[in-house]
C-alpha cells in the first residue's frame, strides 16, 4: 500500500462498489414489497460487474487503486484504496452473494396474493447492506472508516439472525449484537489511542509513523482483541453457534461465509499494513495459538452435534481458527515485521475457499432440512435418494474444506505448510494437518448417514427448486476448483491427483478421518464396519467419548457471558504483554 493520495484511473469504481449496494437497499425499501427482490437482483448484477471492473483495472495498472473522497488528501481527507487483497475479496464476495441471491429467490420470494411480506423484504435489504459494508471494509484506507464499516456490517448481520422473529433467534441475535458491540468499542478505544499518539488514522501514513511504545501496544492489543470478538475466534465465540445455526439457511450462509471475514480482514490490515513491525513474534504465536485451540475445540464439538446446522456452525468456528495460523508464518524474523508472501496468500485463499464451501454447505443443509423436515444427523437416512444434488453439494463443499485436491483449501494448505517449513515452525504444520483430518471426520460422519438407504418405504422424490440446488452446487464447485487459481501463484503446487504421494495422503486422510469419526462422533458413523469396530474398540471409544464430552463442557463453560467477557479483558492484556515483550 502506498501513501500517495491521488485518484487513480478506475478509482471511481471503488465508491461505486460501496454505494451501489446501499443505493439498491434504499431503492428496495422505498419501492417495497416484491420490488425489493427485483431491485436486489438488478443490484447484484451491477455489483458483480463493478467487482469484475475493479479487478480488470487492477490487472491493467498492476497497482493499488485509490480514490480520494472530495479531493481532500489524507490525513485530513479520506482515501479509499484497493490493493490485491481487497480486489480478491471483493470478487469472491460478489460471487458468493450472487450464488446466495439465486438460492434465496426460492426461500425469500414474496408469496402470491401478498403485497409485502416482512421477512423477504428485510432479507433482500439486509443482503445488500452486508455487501455494501463488506466492500467498505475492503476499500477503507483509514482506521475510523473501518470502524464505521465494521459497525454497519454488524447492524446488517444481526437482524439476519432473527428474521423469523422467534424468541430463541431473537435471544441469539441480542447476544451477538451485545458481544459485537463490546468488540467494536474495544476497537474504537484502540483507534482513539492511535490517533492521540500518532496524529493520523490513515493506514498508509501509520505504516510510516508508528513506533513501539506502551500506548501503541495497548492500542494494538485493544483493536486486535475487539476484532477477534467480532470474528468469533476461540474463546470469544459465545455468540456464533446459536446465531449461525438458528438463522434461515440463506442468512446463515451470508453470516458464516462472509460477515465473519469482514473483521478478519481488518485484523490483516492492521497487522500487515498499518503496523507490520509492531506486534512481533510472541503476539503472532498467541494469535495462532488461539487459532489452534479453535480448530481443536470447534472440530471436536462439531463431531458431537446432533443437528446438521449446528455441526456446520461449529465447523465455521474451527475454520476461523485456520485463518489465524498464517500470522506467525508470515513473520519475517530478519526485519521483525509481518511481510506479504506465501503465508498471507495461503491465508486469504483459505478465507475465500471457506466462504464458498461454507455457503454451499449451509444452502445444501437448508434444502435437506426443507425436504426431510428436520436436520438430525442420525436420521438423515434416505436423504441422498430424495435430494441427491443437495447431498452432492454438501459433500463437494465438505471435501473442498478438507483440503482435497484440487480445492482452494489444498493450495492454501500447501502454501501455509511451505511457509511453516521455511520458517522452521513445525508445530503449526502439525495443527494444519490435524485440522484437515478432523474435517474429514465430520464430513464422513454426515455422509455415512445421508447415503444410507432409508428403512421406511422409499419416499417420493421431493421437488426442490432446481435453481436452489444449482446455486449450492455451483458454490461448492467454485471452492473445489479454486485450486486452479494457482496459475497466478509461484511454483507448481498442484500435483497430479494420481501422483503416488497424493494417493497415499488421500488414503491416510480418509482412514484417519473415519477413525476420528468413530472415536469422537456422538453418533457412530453408519459405516458397514462401524458396529464391529465399536464392539472391539468399546473401551477405547468410552475413553475418547469422555474426552469429547470434556471438550464439549469446556466449550459450554467458555460460552458463559462472564467467562467470555473476562476472556476479552485477559486477551487484551496478554496481547499487550506479548507485544511489549517483543522489544
Amino acid at each position, binding site marked *: 500500500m502506498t501513501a500517495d493520495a491521488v485518484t487513480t484511473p478506475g478509482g471511481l469504481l471503488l465508491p461505486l462498489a460501496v454505494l451501489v449496494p446501499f443505493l439498491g437497499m434504499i431503492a428496495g425499501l422505498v419501492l417495497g414489497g416484491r420490488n425489493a427482490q427485483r431491485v436486489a437482483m438488478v443490484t447484484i448484477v451491477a455489483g458483480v460487474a463493478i467487482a469484475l471492473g475493479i479487478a480488470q483495472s487492477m490487472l491493467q495498472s498492476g497497482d493499488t487503486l485509490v480514490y480520494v473522497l472530495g479531493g481532500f488528501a489524507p490525513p485530513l481527507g479520506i482515501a479509499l484504496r484497493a490493493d490485491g487483497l481487497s480486489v480478491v475479496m471483493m470478487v469472491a464476495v460478489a460471487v458468493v452473494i450472487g450464488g446466495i441471491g439465486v438460492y434465496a429467490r426460492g426461500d425469500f420470494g414474496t408469496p402470491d396474493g401478498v403485497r409485502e411480506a416482512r421477512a423477504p423484504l428485510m432479507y433482500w435489504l439486509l443482503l445488500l447492506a452486508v455487501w455494501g459494508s463488506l466492500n467498505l471494509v475492503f476499500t477503507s484506507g483509514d482506521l475510523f472508516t473501518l470502524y464505521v464499516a465494521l459497525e454497519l456490517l454488524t447492524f446488517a448481520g444481526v437482524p439476519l439472525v432473527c428474521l423469523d422473529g422467534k424468541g430463541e433467534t431473537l435471544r441469539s441475535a441480542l447476544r451477538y449484537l451485545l458481544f459485537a458491540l463490546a468488540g467494536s468499542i474495544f476497537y474504537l*478505544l484502540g483507534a482513539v489511542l492511535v490517533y492521540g499518539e500518532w496524529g493520523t488514522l490513515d493506514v498508509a501514513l501509520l505504516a510510516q509513523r508508528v513506533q513501539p511504545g506502551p500506548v501503541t501496544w495497548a492500542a494494538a492489543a485493544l483493536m486486535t482483541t475487539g476484532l477477534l470478538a467480532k470474528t468469533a475466534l476461540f474463546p470469544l465465540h459465545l455468540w456464533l453457534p446459536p446465531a449461525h445455526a438458528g438463522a434461515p439457511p440463506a442468512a446463515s450462509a451470508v453470516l458464516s461465509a462472509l460477515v465473519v471475514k469482514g473483521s478478519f480482514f481488518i485484523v490483516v490490515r492492521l497487522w500487515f499494513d498499518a503496523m507490520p513491525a509492531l506486534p512481533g513474534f510472541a503476539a503472532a504465536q498467541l494469535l495462532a495459538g488461539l487459532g489452534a485451540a479453535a480448530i481443536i475445540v470447534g472440530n471436536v464439538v462439531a463431531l458431537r452435534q446432533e443437528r446438521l446446522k449446528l455441526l456446520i456452525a461449529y465447523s465455521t468456528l474451527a475454520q476461523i481458527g485456520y485463518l489465524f495460523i498464517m500470522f506467525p508464518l508470515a513473520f519475517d524474523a530478519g526485519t521483525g515485521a509481518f511481510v506479504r508472501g506465501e503465508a498471507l496468500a495461503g491465508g486469504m485463499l483459505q478465507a475465500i475457499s471457506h466462504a464458498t464451501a461454507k455457503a454451499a454447505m449451509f444452502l445444501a443443509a437448508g434444502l435437506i432440512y426443507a425436504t426431510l423436515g428436520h436436520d438430525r444427523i*442420525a436420521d438423515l437416512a434416505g436423504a441422498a435418494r430424495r435430494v441427491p444434488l443437495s447431498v452432492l453439494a454438501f459433500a463437494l463443499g465438505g471435501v473442498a474444506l478438507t483440503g482435497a485436491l484440487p480445492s482452494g483449501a489444498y493450495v492454501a494448505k500447501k502454501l501455509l505448510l511451505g511457509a511453516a517449513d521455511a520458517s522452521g515452525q513445525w508445530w503449526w504444520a502439525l495443527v494444519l494437518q490435524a485440522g484437515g483430518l478432523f474435517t474429514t471426520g465430520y464430513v464422513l460422519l454426515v455422509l455415512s448417514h445421508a447415503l444410507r438407504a432409508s428403512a421406511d418405504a422409499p419416499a417420493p422424490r421431493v421437488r426442490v427448486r432446481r435453481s436452489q440446488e444449482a446455486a449450492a452446487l455451483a458454490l461448492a464447485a467454485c471452492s473445489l476448483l479454486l485450486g486452479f487459481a494457482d496459475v497466478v501463484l509461484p511454483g507448481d503446487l498442484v500435483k497430479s491427483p494420481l501422483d503416488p504421494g497424493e494417493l497415499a495422503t488421500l488414503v491416510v486422510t480418509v482412514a484417519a478421518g473415519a477413525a476420528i469419526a468413530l472415536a469422537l462422533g456422538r453418533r457412530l458413523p453408519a459405516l458397514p464396519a462401524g*458396529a464391529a469396530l465399536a464392539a472391539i474398540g468399546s473401551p477405547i471409544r468410552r475413553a475418547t467419548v469422555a474426552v469429547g464430552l470434556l471438550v464439549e*463442557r469446556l466449550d459450554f463453560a467458555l460460552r458463559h*457471558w*462472564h467467562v467470555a467477557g473476562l476472556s476479552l479483558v485477559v486477551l487484551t492484556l496478554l496481547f499487550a504483554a506479548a507485544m511489549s515483550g517483543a522489544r
Partner: protein
Amino acid sequence: MNAATVFGLLATALVGVGLYGFIVNPQPLRKILAFNVIGSGVFLLFGAIARRGAALGLGGDPVPQALLITGIVVAFSATALAVTVLLRLFDETGSTTLSSGVAPSASEPDPAKARE
C-alpha cells in the same frame, strides 16, 4: 495537572466502570447502558485528545471532534437496535434473559443402541 489530563483520567474511570457493568450485570438492558458508559468514556478520551492537540489558535484539534460526532451517531444507532431487539425478545418470550442452552451431558447413546 491540566484539563486534558483530568478528562483523560475521568474517561479511563468511565471505561473501567462500564466494562465492569458490561461483564457482570446479567440483564441485557444494564449491558446496553454499560455499553453506553464505556462509549462515553471513549468519546471523552477522544475529546481530551482533541484538546491536547489544539493548535493554530483553535480550541481543539477538529479531526477528533468530527469523528466523535460520527462515533456518537453509531453508538446511538447501536443502542436503538439493541433496545428494539430486546423489546421484541420480551414480547415473544416474556423474559429478557440471555442465557440459553443446557450443559452437555453424558447422554451418550451406547454403541449397541446407536444404530437403531
